[in-house]
């Protein structure tokens, strides 16, 4: 007797919600067991990583700050992935968004007014889009894989950042350290929840995700994206241009990554530094899939990812769990989440009691 995976006639609604819970539970049990076995406080690690960040109100602001850029980038990527456009260079677009916003900030240092931040935001979006123009143009004109071009440009973006902060943008008053001057008060995002560090970027990310959900579910644009992704042939007959969709998808994902870059540099960094790339662009790819490419799901996935990161730091400070062990916990959670996805689309059925032929 054995078990066999069988495709469900349609995705299970129960499993959409039950699978992630199951995955986190499995991570907790297996993780606690393994880490206890190799000599760490396994139960404590699970508690600090998965429970403390949720129960401790002091950590909520950190969850919001960490989740906002992830959600913003992942929403853009998800729209592209729905259309089969595989932008994995969001990190580069995020950097360019931050750089473009910084360029505005540096040239408006002597000015004041509420118009500066919106201008920085526009520059950020434009910067992210500009970095996505290359993959889009090469994909539509020459059919060059956007996976590789977007990834390659990420490394170029990092070098561009290094060049600017070590060279022309270096703060003359900063003792020669590679960083720009601090942004002025008009170039920094306002705090929206008093007495916390929650800046304007957090609600912006939420609103963008909700708008994206509405657009994807209700509008013609969303329909077009889904059709092009699911059935390119049908889309052509329906009069949707594949090239136009590729351009749209890359501009939206590049623009949102650029916006995330602007919000990070103006919200948390408040100046440009070499440490600006923090892998948000790559982590957001995982977030997009954990959220099943659905903007609402992505909000939860971004939150879950932040819990694991913030909890990892708590575990380091409270029970001295090494940073490396935290990485193992995080990847284990991702593995289980990705594996549990199968339950949404498939179910297990017992075979063997009946002739093998009829099981197919």
């Amino acid at each position, binding site marked *: 007797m054995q078990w066999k995976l069988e495709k469900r006639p349609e995705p299970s609604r129960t499993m959409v919600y039950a699978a992630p819970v199951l995955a986190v539970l499995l991570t907790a049990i297996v993780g606690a067991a393994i880490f206890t076995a190799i000599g760490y406080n396994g139960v404590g690690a699970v508690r600090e990583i998965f429970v403390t960040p949720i129960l401790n109100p002091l950590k909520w602001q950190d969850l919001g700050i960490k989740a906002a850029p992830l959600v913003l980038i992942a929403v853009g990527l998800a729209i592209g992935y729905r259309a089969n456009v595989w932008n994995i260079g969001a990190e580069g677009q995020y950097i360019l968004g931050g750089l473009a916003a910084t360029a505005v900030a540096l040239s408006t240092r002597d000015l004041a007014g509420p118009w500066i931040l919106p201008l920085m935001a526009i520059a950020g979006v434009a910067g992210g889009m500009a970095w996505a123009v290359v993959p889009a143009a090469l994909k539509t004109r020459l*059919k060059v894989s956007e996976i590789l071009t977007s990834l390659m*440009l990420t490394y170029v973006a990092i070098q561009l950042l290094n060049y600017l902060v070590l060279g022309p943008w270096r703060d003359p008053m900063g003792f020669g350290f590679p960083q720009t001057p601090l942004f002025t008060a008009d170039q920094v995002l306002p705090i929206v929840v008093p007495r916390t560090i929650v800046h304007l970027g957090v609600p912006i990310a939420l609103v963008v995700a909700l708008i994206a959900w509405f657009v994807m579910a209700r509008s013609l644009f969303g329909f077009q994206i889904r059709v092009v992704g699911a059935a390119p042939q049908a889309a052509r007959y329906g009069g949707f241009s594949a090239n136009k969709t590729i351009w749209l998808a890359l501009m939206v994902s590049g623009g949102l990554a650029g916006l995330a870059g602007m919000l990070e540099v103006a919200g948390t960094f408040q100046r440009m530094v070499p440490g600006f790339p923090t892998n948000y662009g790559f982590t957001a790819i995982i977030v997009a899939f954990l959220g099943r490419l659905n903007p609402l799901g992505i909000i939860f996935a971004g939150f879950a990812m932040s819990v694991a990161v913030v909890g990892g730091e708590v575990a380091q400070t409270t029970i001295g769990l090494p940073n490396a*062990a935290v990485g193992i916990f995080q990847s284990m959670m991702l593995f289980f989440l990705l594996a549990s996805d199968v339950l949404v689309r498939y179910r297990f059925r017992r075979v063997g009691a009946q002739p093998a032929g009829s099981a197919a």
Partner: protein
Amino acid sequence: MTTEMLIAIIITVIGASTPILIAALGELVVEKSGVLNLGVEGMMLIGAVTGFAVTFTTGNPWLGIACAAFAGMASSMIFAFLTLSLSANQVATGLALTIFGTGYSSLFGQAFTGRPITPFRSIFPPELATDPVLRLIFGHSPLVYFSLIMVVAVWWFLTRSRAGLILRAVGENDLSAHSIGYSVIGVRYAAVAFGGAMAGIAGSCFPLLLTPQWAERMTAGRGWIALALVVFAAWRPFRLLAGAYLFGLVMTLELYAKASGGAFSFLPAELWASLPYLATILVLVLISLRRAGHSNAPACLGKPFMPAS
């Protein structure tokens, strides 16, 4: 420039290129079977720490390489199970594998930092490598010869063997291959296992060939370069060889230019460092210009196998 200097540069370039070449050869076979495994960097780190730990403990680098291959293969099976048996998304699973490999290698490696091993030197008697030109032939680490043999072996396997034909069929049209009676999942499992083993060996090059120590995250992003290289080479083993050495040359030439004092200093260091990536994009463009829109990519790359039944 003297011959001596030229040969010195070539030997350094070959060393720098070898781990990238080995990892990329593995990934090439994986991608030819229609699977995209972005976890190369993570598997390389697992191979690096395993290779170091075993060599340090037993003093036998051959055993170190074998165990690195096995560890890389074992970690690739996590990826294979999730993506092939459970149809999880390949891009996300590959990225998660890299996070896992980074965490695992630093946890496991904590016991081995601050400890040196003897570098894995030439297998030929030193008398053979006295002359600079002879050194160019006989003066390398066994890992370098292994990488060159594997280029030919992968080429032969993919173009001349029956098994290679099946593997390519699975990558080009999994449904047809399935209907003729080949096990698509089985072939892909084997390909991913091979890719994992090669990534593990590539990782072991870091402590055994390049710098005989263990340091956290010592592969420093070269797994991603290997991924780029596969596309750069349009999935062809010999072009992969040329590409890997070209990448190594660009990376190393920068160091030699700076070390020679002044020459090339008119180019910002950052531009030098961007060159390999810009070159990849350029080559991608040139390939598609010449081939009029056909990039030679396996048709099923990255798509899960979904038989209708």
